[in-house]
């Protein structure tokens, strides 16, 4: 789970021993291990839903509408007679994809932009500062909803919308880290050695500055699932008949008293996955926190 840097950094030879040490420390953190376990399992379900789901998630069966849980249908059936268990499993691939694709581009863009403006400062930094201020004073959810409404609902457009708004938060974090790293001894050493700016930024400063960004990324993935399912609940996310947890809860919300299992299962899936990401984020923060 150690964050991989894009370019191998020329840090002291203690690096590999430090990774080993980190790994050993990680193994002693039960929270982190539980988180890794949950996410590993979720990833497995997301990659091979067909293997775990007993039924076709979209097969309508008018003869078996809204059945209570039974052996062939462990979570019962929905209002179209579709197997609720299979739909929750298939939703793993949508929601896990959401966690990654809604955040990873924001992460990359944010890291690059944040590193550059943090290193060079100047006019670009001033403009960037105004832009960040403008975005963070606007309501996040409203911006995303508006962008989705402009582009049209759907998963891809939702990712674009979240990325358009979300990269700013990564960039802000990265910029602050780079500014504080820039004053460090090894950055000064790099400059004395006559290394190129890009080399200093991406091989020297970045690997050290990226820890809080990675920690934030973990939390953000949990948030992305929440946000994505909120949009799904409002009908702006995943498109029918695709199963997605927010959509499943929306479909089941009229039956909370009569067929509670329809909304409870996707609800648990959201909480569990978010829990997994939060545990990893928390554990990493603990693990990578500078000592002393």
């Amino acid at each position: 789970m150690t964050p991989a840097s894009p370019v191998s950094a020329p840090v002291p030879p203690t690096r590999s021993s430090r990774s080993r040490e980190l790994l050993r420390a990680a193994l002693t953190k039960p929270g982190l291990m539980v988180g890794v376990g949950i996410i590993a399992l979720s990833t497995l379900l997301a990659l091979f839903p067909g293997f775990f789901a007993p039924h076709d998630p979209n097969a309508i069966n008018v003869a078996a509408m809204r059945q209570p849980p039974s052996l062939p249908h462990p979570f019962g059936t929905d209002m179209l007679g579709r197997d609720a268990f299979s739909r929750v499993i298939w939703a793993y691939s949508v929601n896990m994809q959401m966690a990654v694709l809604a955040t990873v581009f924001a992460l990359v863009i944010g890291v690059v932009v944040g590193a550059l403006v943090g290193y060079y400062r100047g006019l670009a930094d001033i403009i960037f500062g105004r832009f960040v201020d403008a975005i963070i004073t606007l309501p996040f959810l409203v911006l995303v909803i508006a962008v989705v409404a402009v582009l049209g609902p759907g998963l891809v457009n939702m990712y674009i919308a979240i990325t358009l708004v979300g990269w700013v938060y990564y960039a802000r974090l990265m910029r602050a880290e780079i500014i504080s790293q820039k004053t460090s001894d090894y950055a000064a050493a790099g400059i004395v050695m006559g290394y190129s700016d890009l080399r200093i930024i991406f091989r020297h400063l970045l690997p050290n500055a990226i820890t809080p960004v990675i920690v934030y990324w973990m939390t953000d993935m949990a948030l992305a699932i929440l946000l994505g399912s909120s949009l799904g609940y409002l009908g702006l996310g995943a498109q029918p008949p695709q199963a997605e947890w927010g959509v499943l809860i929306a479909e089941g919300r009229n039956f909370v008293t009569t067929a509670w299992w329809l909304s409870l299962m996707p609800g648990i899936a959201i909480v569990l996955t978010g829990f997994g990401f939060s545990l990893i984020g928390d554990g990493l923060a603990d693990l990578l926190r500078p000592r002393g």
Partner: protein
Amino acid sequence: MKKTLFAAAVAATLALALTGPLAAQERGGTLKFARYDGSKLVDPIYAERNPDIWMVGSLYSTLLERARDGSGLTGALAASFSQSSDGKTIDITLRDGIRFSDGSPVTAADVVFSLDRARNPDLSPWAGLLGAISGVTGEGAKVTITLSRPDPTILSMLATFNTAIVSRAAFEKAPGATDQEKSAALFAAGGPGAGSGPFYLSGFEQGASMSFKANPYYWKSGADGKPLPYLEGVEFQIIPDDATRILKLQAGEVDIAEFIPFARIAELGTDPNLQMELFPSTRIIYSPINTRATRADGTPNPLADKRVRQALNYATNKEALVSLVLHGAGAPMTSPLMSSSTPMAVKTDPLYGYDPVKAMELMQEGGFAAGTKIKLTTLAGSADDATVFAALQQMWTAVGVELVAEQVDSPTRGAKNRSGEFDIHTYGWVDDIADPSQVVGWLGHTPTAKAVGTGWENKEFNELYDTAAAEMDPERRAAHFRRMQEIYAEEAPLLFMYETPFAVALSAKVTGYVQTPLGANVFEEASLQR
């Protein structure tokens, strides 16, 4: 001491419980009503959206009204009315002693003011419906309406919300330079005086709540001989979320919750504290099919061939749709152009019965290449639309259609409908007037709305429509509408789907509440039992 008090209270409660249900219509009480959306401005001519239109009748009376059994027109504010043999003059005599809710009399001058306002195209979006009126004059209790040409719908129009009578004096007194400003000011101020309906507006909070108080001068009497309404007032709360609205009713915080999702009808019907009402409506749900020769992107449109459109209709199991989406509370459309309760509807049952074999033949004759992608545009967040999509996708796979979904919000769907950037999209309609002309104009008459955005154009149909608009003989007019329905069914510019009732859940204490087929909420005979 404490104990005796308690015992007395129990006795009193018991006594109330025993005598309560005996009287059929108790007087008094405030009915609490949970709405799906709020009114913005309840004024006969500025009411544009259903939540406004459907409340007009509670605050304003019309000259005529439709008998409750739908049989014909009777006088409301009018004591009597007559139409000349050439159809170009209508004489109306107002009732004696009718008053606005502040006690001032309703006079011919108010009627002239109201009708002039209603037919002024600069003010009213509905003025087109009164285009035949050339003048309105009045004196004392007599009003004369003159028409430039005979109009078979004109009497119906006098029973429609947009011709409801407002007080001229109230408008003259209201602040504001224009009629719009005066109307908004009157609505914002609330209080009695603007109309002569069973209630007057007594409170309004934008997007949150609205309240009505009984009009003590209402012209209609109840079963006990005293003026209606039975209620002291009605309080509306806006709860857009379906599930929350129902919870509010179940918790006893409101007495009525409207627009119950069909999936919950069976469950609520078994609750002993509730009554589940399915009021017959003129609402139809259908899907316009783009009939243009090319799609918006310039590629040839496989749906331009009418055989393909017919095939899609045959390939759709409407009975199954009704059971999946409406849970049985509704029926497939039987007239291609209107609900079965709209006057002059021709019933064809089944209209395109489920026949996948015939559908496949027609698909091939129409040159539809198997595996072609067709896009169904649906409303984001609509559970019904999601179900319709899932069902159609499965049904149409059998005839070689690969159906893909596109969810959009309502204004986007409206824009796509107008620009023709769609293959098929879901849509719905509720009549505003008790006459087929409005819905037929909307769905089929090309000059009105490009035949509901489908781009379909049929010369015979358009001519029939124009002829029927001036046809005073009811039988000949009905014949024109019959022919239009034949043409439309054959051409299939729509996926004909189903009719739905208005599903309303009421507490067991409520009696006499009605939602009309046009959607209007009628509280005048509603009462609460305590």
